[in-house]
């Protein structure tokens, strides 16, 4: 029999719940397929990620998974080294902007953000008698230095640019509730009653702070139609309480499981999705997934997973949501 395969995963940084989902899914899948899985913390630092890639290569990994990164350009030399060593690469969450990434598995951040933004605008319409009035909307960013944040803003802008009467005021929530709370309080003060809605890039780790700030100002969270992408256990809670309008569910768990599956399949010579295919799995939230050429990397397949809107398209209690799988 062949030697046991080893897959190395580096996560962006393990504090966020969806990263926990990456790790759990990868572990479970690796166990199921009988391969070793190594997990390391990239500490949100491209140099650190490249250091780990070097170490992994010294250890002799057979495949590599990048579980998100803050800076997608800076780690490209690391990906290239993997390519040179003929080690297949998969990426989750965000794709490196260079090198060959065999499989990039994620929903499209820009598209999903646009989807959430459309929901957001719908909410404004609904609350204002079917029209979009002139006014201010808040966009709570994660971290200006993070490429993830840039992609979210791009998607959001693509929809909001159709409504020039809406003025966008940005605030940085630094991916945490304390800062999102403070910045929303300040912005509510600044614009008084003129705020039509609050868009939160990733409500999973900034939503509760935003809601608390709204409530602290004596207002009702439901009046701001909070939407965004990535829900998280706390987001599910907010949706159930009616304090959040809705969010695009991130297929974190499935993406990581698929990454391990495809890499192992490729190594074992089993068929893997090719550019142009559409992957369909009955009952999976992420299905159907188109497979297109990765627009950021030098080459590779981008398996575009579906991100359904919760609660509009999928119930918040759906057992297929990773939020519910993790907290079970």
């Amino acid at each position: 029999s062949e030697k046991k395969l080893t897959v190395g995963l580096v996560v962006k940084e393990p504090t966020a719940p969806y990263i926990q989902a990456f790790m759990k899914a990868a572990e479970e899948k690796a166990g199921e397929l009988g391969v070793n899985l190594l997990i390391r913390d990239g500490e949100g630092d491209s140099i650190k990620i490249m250091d780990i890639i070097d170490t992994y290569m010294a250890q002799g990994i057979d495949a590599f998974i990048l579980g998100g990164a803050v800076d997608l350009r800076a780690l490209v030399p690391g990906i290239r080294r993997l390519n040179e060593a003929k080690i297949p690469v998969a990426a989750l969450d965000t794709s490196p902007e260079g090198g060959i990434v065999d499989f990039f598995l994620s929903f499209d951040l820009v598209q999903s953000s646009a989807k959430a933004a459309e929901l957001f605008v719908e909410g404004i319409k609904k609350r204002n008698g079917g029209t979009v009035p002139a006014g201010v909307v808040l966009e709570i960013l994660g971290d200006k230095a993070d490429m993830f944040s840039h992609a979210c803003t791009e998607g959001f802008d693509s929809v909001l640019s159709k409504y020039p009467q809406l003025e966008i005021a940005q605030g940085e929530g630094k991916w945490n509730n304390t800062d999102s709370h403070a910045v929303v309080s300040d912005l509510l003060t600044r614009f008084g009653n003129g705020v039509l809605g609050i868009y939160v890039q990733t409500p999973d780790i900034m939503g509760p702070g935003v809601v608390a700030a709204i409530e602290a100002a004596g207002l009702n969270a439901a009046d701001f139609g909070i939407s965004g992408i990535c829900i998280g256990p706390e987001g599910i809670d907010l949706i159930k309480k009616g304090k959040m309008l809705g969010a695009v569910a991130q297929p974190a768990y499935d993406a990581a499981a698929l990454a391990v599956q495809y890499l192992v399949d490729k190594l074992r010579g089993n068929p893997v999705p090719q550019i142009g295919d559409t992957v369909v799995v009955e009952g999976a939230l992420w299905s159907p997934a188109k497979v297109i050429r990765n627009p950021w990397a030098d080459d590779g397949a981008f398996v575009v997973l579906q991100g359904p809107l919760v609660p509009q398209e999928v119930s918040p209690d759906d057992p297929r949501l990773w939020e519910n799988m993790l907290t079970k």
Partner: protein
Amino acid sequence: MSGSLKLRLALLDNIIWMMLIAFFSVCALSIPAFATWTNLVNILYHTTIMSMLVLAQGFVLMSGNLDLSIDAVLAFAPGVAVLMSVKWFPGLLGSPWTAIVLTLSIGALLGLFNGFCVARLGMNAFMQTLSVSIILRGLVLFFIPLSIFPLDPVYSFIGKARIAQLGNIPAAIPVTFFIFFIFHVLINYTVFGRNYLATGGNARASFVAGINTNRMIILGFMVAGILSAIAGMLTAGRQDSVSNTMGNGMTLLAFAGALLGGTSMSGGKGSAFGMLGGAILLGMFSNALNLLGVKVTLIHAAQGTLIFLAILVDRFRVSLRSSMLRKEQIRTLHREEDRGAEYTVGKPREESV
């Protein structure tokens, strides 16, 4: 000393509050929503967490040490306390009151450990608290991969509740003021406070004078641990959950607040009200920049610049102070001359008397 001089000196010694008032006035005049009741309450509310950390750091600095683990304790103490009371031993420690006591005790124990290593084992405070901070952050990640929520209202009270009787302001504000008041008394009006300051001012001299300096240092770290734990309860209460990122990266800003408030890096100096001023000034900076609508990409640079200006102003206080005293002395000499004292003033003269 003339009355006006005394007044001016007092103003100078409270320069942080002068800066606060000056900055406030400028903002009030130029930013529409700034000087409203809601916004002022917001500033204070947002400052509460940082102000606890500033006090913790400032208090340790007063004894001539420093503590880099305060933000990790902020996350660790409430995190582990809530875990214990909700998950590990819900039967035994299930009451939210126990959780509060646990939180404070964990803070105190961590401080005790730091203090013991520094005072007794002679570890370098920087390295000691840095390594403890890394360890605690690691453990928090291990124990709390996912946030724990919601919290018991009793536990989240001081972070979240509003007091209807007091114009609906958050409970955190009076709690903070009360703690600062306690520390003001502690530092200025108790024997412990003076001995503590003396230890920071000159540990050797205090030791010779019979002060148990090791105990002072250990107590200092314990107090910092407790204050950080309170900051953690404020944070957890505000977001109604404990999460592993709480407090991330606040330590350095807490230093800034304490130093702006007149604490000295070399120990032996510090006032509770000064630190409160420092914390509020930092909070006001970021509030004003948010209200002004500074571009997100420039907000950090602007904040840094404001801090730089503040320390520049603070720096001039020292020169201003001595020049004022000097002028006063000259004036006194002149007065003596008028009264026909034996010294003559003015250009140096050959003969005298």
